[in-house]
């Protein structure tokens, strides 16, 4: 089931809300959430729901053993085993085809590539499970004694299939003791509707333009056309994924859970390091906390760990070489920035650092888009202008300018909304004014969000079954 469908919004959610908000105590509410989460997952993956339940059982059991053997070598064994099993699941379901393909290519073998259907959201719930195991081992959280409550944590439907990767510590207390007051519910709804609108109104419209240019062979695409499309693609990925995170955070808040932010306006960054502190924060912080400081041959090795982290970041995004290049590409720039040093970079001209970071990020999204490496090669030739010499490509073309003209307001709107404008407006109404200003702001936001919900719903009539980009991860 996808969030951006009328079925999810007006049938599934309506039933869940009705069941959830008519329950009186947390225990009953938890039962509603677990059942609805399993139904949500089973809707798309009737068989793989077994894997989700099995994974929760396994990790819950290992965490209990880790807790029982605190400080003993056995705790290490259980931790290692749990993580190995989790990673094995991921390898089997996500990377087997990729491994076999590369094996065949490298050793000129003809091993049949298994057609394994990847269970939706496996990357997210597996990483949640790993973070839980590690936190139990480090004793930053106490192992959950109830399997049911752990299943609730792992399967909670708002973040089950496309994140954010929620740490157990974030919702540990709220599993047993949470309260969603009117403000939580109102703010949650507003957040979820904003997320849905980001996806349906902006992201889907941008993607239609991207596909016009990148959707087929790009050999003859002009220099300006390539830049134009990859910029729109960068905006698309941001609105698609952050929209999904907004829906997850908003729904979570309505149910009384307070998830951490996953995106903090990444395009306002001045460096690549800052970009990754603002982009998919739950993933970058996962790698920072659980992999970056991992000892290699006895101790953490800064630069080896750094590249390991970025290799894994790329690999996590998909079983394809372009994702690995994408991760390492950012790794190289973060390595360079680390060498230069934060202090020195702060002294640089702000406009130049903005331009530098945007160029690197935007080209990075080009790497992200092209899973076909020959197309990726052409992308580099086009975006660098080399193809103007080597292939006689045009500097610009009428299609690009025409497309820009036909979408100019959408593009301007998308760029504005990708900046922290909404929080500033919200801050003004909440903090600067008196009660009247607050009331106007609240009712204004409510009315605007109702309009956005209806508009998104209308667009969904023609746009149903348009899966989120991050579903495949």
């Amino acid at each position, binding site marked *: 089931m996808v969030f951006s*469908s*009328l*079925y*999810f919004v*007006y*049938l599934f959610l*309506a039933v869940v809300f009705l069941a959830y908000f008519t329950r009186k105590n947390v225990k009953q509410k938890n039962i509603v959430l677990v059942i609805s989460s399993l139904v949500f997952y*089973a*809707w*798309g*993956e*009737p*068989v793989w729901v077994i894997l989700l339940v099995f994974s929760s059982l396994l990790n819950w059991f290992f965490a209990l053993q880790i807790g029982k053997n605190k400080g003993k070598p056995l705790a290490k064994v259980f931790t290692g085993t749990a993580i190995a099993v989790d990673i094995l699941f991921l390898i089997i379901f996500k990377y087997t085809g990729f491994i076999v393909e590369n094996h065949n290519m490298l050793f000129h073998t003809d091993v049949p590539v298994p057609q394994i259907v990847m269970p939706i959201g496996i990357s997210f719930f597996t990483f949640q499970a790993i973070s839980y195991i590690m936190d139990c081992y480090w004793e930053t959280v106490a192992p959950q004694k109830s399997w049911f409550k752990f299943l609730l944590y792992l399967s909670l439907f708002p973040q089950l299939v496309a994140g954010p990767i929620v740490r157990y510590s974030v919702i540990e207390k709220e599993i047993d003791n949470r309260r969603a*007051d*009117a*403000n939580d*519910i*109102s*703010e949650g*709804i*507003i957040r979820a509707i904003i997320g849905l609108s980001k996806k349906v109104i902006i992201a889907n*419209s941008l993607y239609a333009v991207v*596909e*016009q240019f990148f*959707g*087929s*062979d790009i050999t*003859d695409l002009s220099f300006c056309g390539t830049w134009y499309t990859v910029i729109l693609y960068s905006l698309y990925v941001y609105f698609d994924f952050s929209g999904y995170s907004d829906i997850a955070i908003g729904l979570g808040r309505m149910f009384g859970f307070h998830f951490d932010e996953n995106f903090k306006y990444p395009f306002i960054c001045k460096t690549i390091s800052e970009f990754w502190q603002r982009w998919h924060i739950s993933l970058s912080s996962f790698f920072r906390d659980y992999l970056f400081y991992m000892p290699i041959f006895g101790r953490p090795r800064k630069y080896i760990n750094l590249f390991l982290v970025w290799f894994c970041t790329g690999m996590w995004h998909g079983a394809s070489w372009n994702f690995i290049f994408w991760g390492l590409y950012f790794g190289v720039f973060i390595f360079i920035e680390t060498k230069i040093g934060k202090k020195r970079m702060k002294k640089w001209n702000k406009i130049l650092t903005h331009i530098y970071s945007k160029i690197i990020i935007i080209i990075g999204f080009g790497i992200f888009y092209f899973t076909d490496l020959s197309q990726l090669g052409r992308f580099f030739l086009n975006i660098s202008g080399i193809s103007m010499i080597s292939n006689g490509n045009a500097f610009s*073309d*009428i*299609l690009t300018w*025409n*497309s820009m*003209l*036909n*979408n*100019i*307001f*959408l593009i301007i709107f998308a760029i504005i909304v990708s900046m922290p404008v909404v929080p500033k407006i919200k801050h003004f109404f909440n903090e600067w004014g008196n*009660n*009247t200003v*607050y*009331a106007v702001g*609240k*009712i204004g*936001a*409510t*009315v605007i*969000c*109702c309009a956005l*919900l*209806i*508009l998104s719903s*209308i*667009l*969904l*009539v*023609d746009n*149903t*079954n348009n899966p989120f980009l991050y579903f495949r991860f």
Partner: protein
Amino acid sequence: MSEQKTTNTKKKKDFNHLKRKNVEAAFSYLSVLIFTVVFGAVAVFLLVIPRSTESQIEKRTLAKFPVFSFDSYFKGEYTAKIAEFYDDTVPFRDDFKTMGYNFKSVFGFHTDEEVKVIGNIKAIDKNKDKDKNKKTETSGKPAEQSKAAGETSEKPQESTASAQESKAPESSEEKPEKMGEAEYTEENGLIVVKHNGHYRALELFGGGTGDSYVAALNNYHKDLGDKVKIYSVTAPLASEYYTPSNYSGYTTSQKECFDDIASRLDDGIVYVDIDTPLSYHTNEDIYFRTDHHWSPLGAYYAAQTFADAAGVDFKDLSTYKSETIEGFVGTMYAFTGDANINNDPEDFTYYIPENYDKCKTDYFTTSFQPDGSGNFFCGVGDPQHNAYLTFMGGDEQIVKVTTNVKNGRKLMIVKDSYGNAVPGYLFGSFEEIYVVDMRYCDVNLVNLVKDNGVTDLAFVMCAYSEVGGNADNLDVIRTQ
């Protein structure tokens, strides 16, 4: 008055002095209430209002509620289809779609000569296409050229390759699957142009060799011999005439493509060039702006050219009775999703021959089993969207028209939907007219021609069908 003002100010002051926490709580409740009402209203609307069953815009039956089976459930198909049913059959679906398209039209600037690109279009490498054509030349002799077109084709170079090489395989296992209603594919790309205050949607033409078409027609010629005169009548797409000059690099010359294909047809097959005569009438409404078909007027000029080539009588347009359906918006609205197309409807004018009352129209199934008699020009439901169905009500049948003409000539038109608009103009030209859609024919066409004493066999279809997958059907129905 001033007292009331003082009271209001006092109230305002009081409100502003309330504890923020209480104000937040009160307005949060109000906010939740508003959301609940709006959300609940939409949810109930979607649940209780009768669901749509078909879409006039998309011209399709909407999803049906799936039948449960354990197999489909465990494959995830059952649940997916329930969701699809719910999303696909939204009440007033077409109206909401139109609202959505209208909203999307605010994304950009609108100018007097604007062009909007839909789908993926690419610049045409015309040299590449020519090379391809050279390689696939099959026949050594030029096709006969329609005199009415006033042009003669250049003699193609002798080629050692035989037409037999491209003959369709005969064994049933090797027969290609028949293509359905698929004249438009997304890869072709569309543009919506505004000209003289009106919007027009155009399918851009990427070219093609038409190998299947050439092979099939040559095979028909071989099977039927010279007793049956074969005509190749290919309708250009509107983009041939209405593409803005600065977009000419994104569409290829259809005339050149047709000529090249004609040069590879066997001697004895008549190539009827309708591209040239149509080009003299581009200031008239020879193509619909909102539909992918030519208009009945465009079909008239094509029929006239064909009649000249066939050497039969042809009635002037002034002798026909015209009927007009106003407010027509055709298929291009669904293909482009462009609100401007929907907001700029046009007239659908068709022409009924004066001897119509003396003609008899018999309908047959695709297996040529009698399926009753009726009208050739049919009344259709929702004519504003379905006006093109006026001709025989659609494609999925074989139709025979018996006229009052006595000249011993019997015509069979093998066509795609472009061909539907043509037969009406030939009621005064042939004794019998058979209309067969190459996508919906389940009998052997050669036998059908022979069994019914057909004297003239015309292949009437659009450029896409000639170079695309539809042409594969021609050999399928020849050998089935």
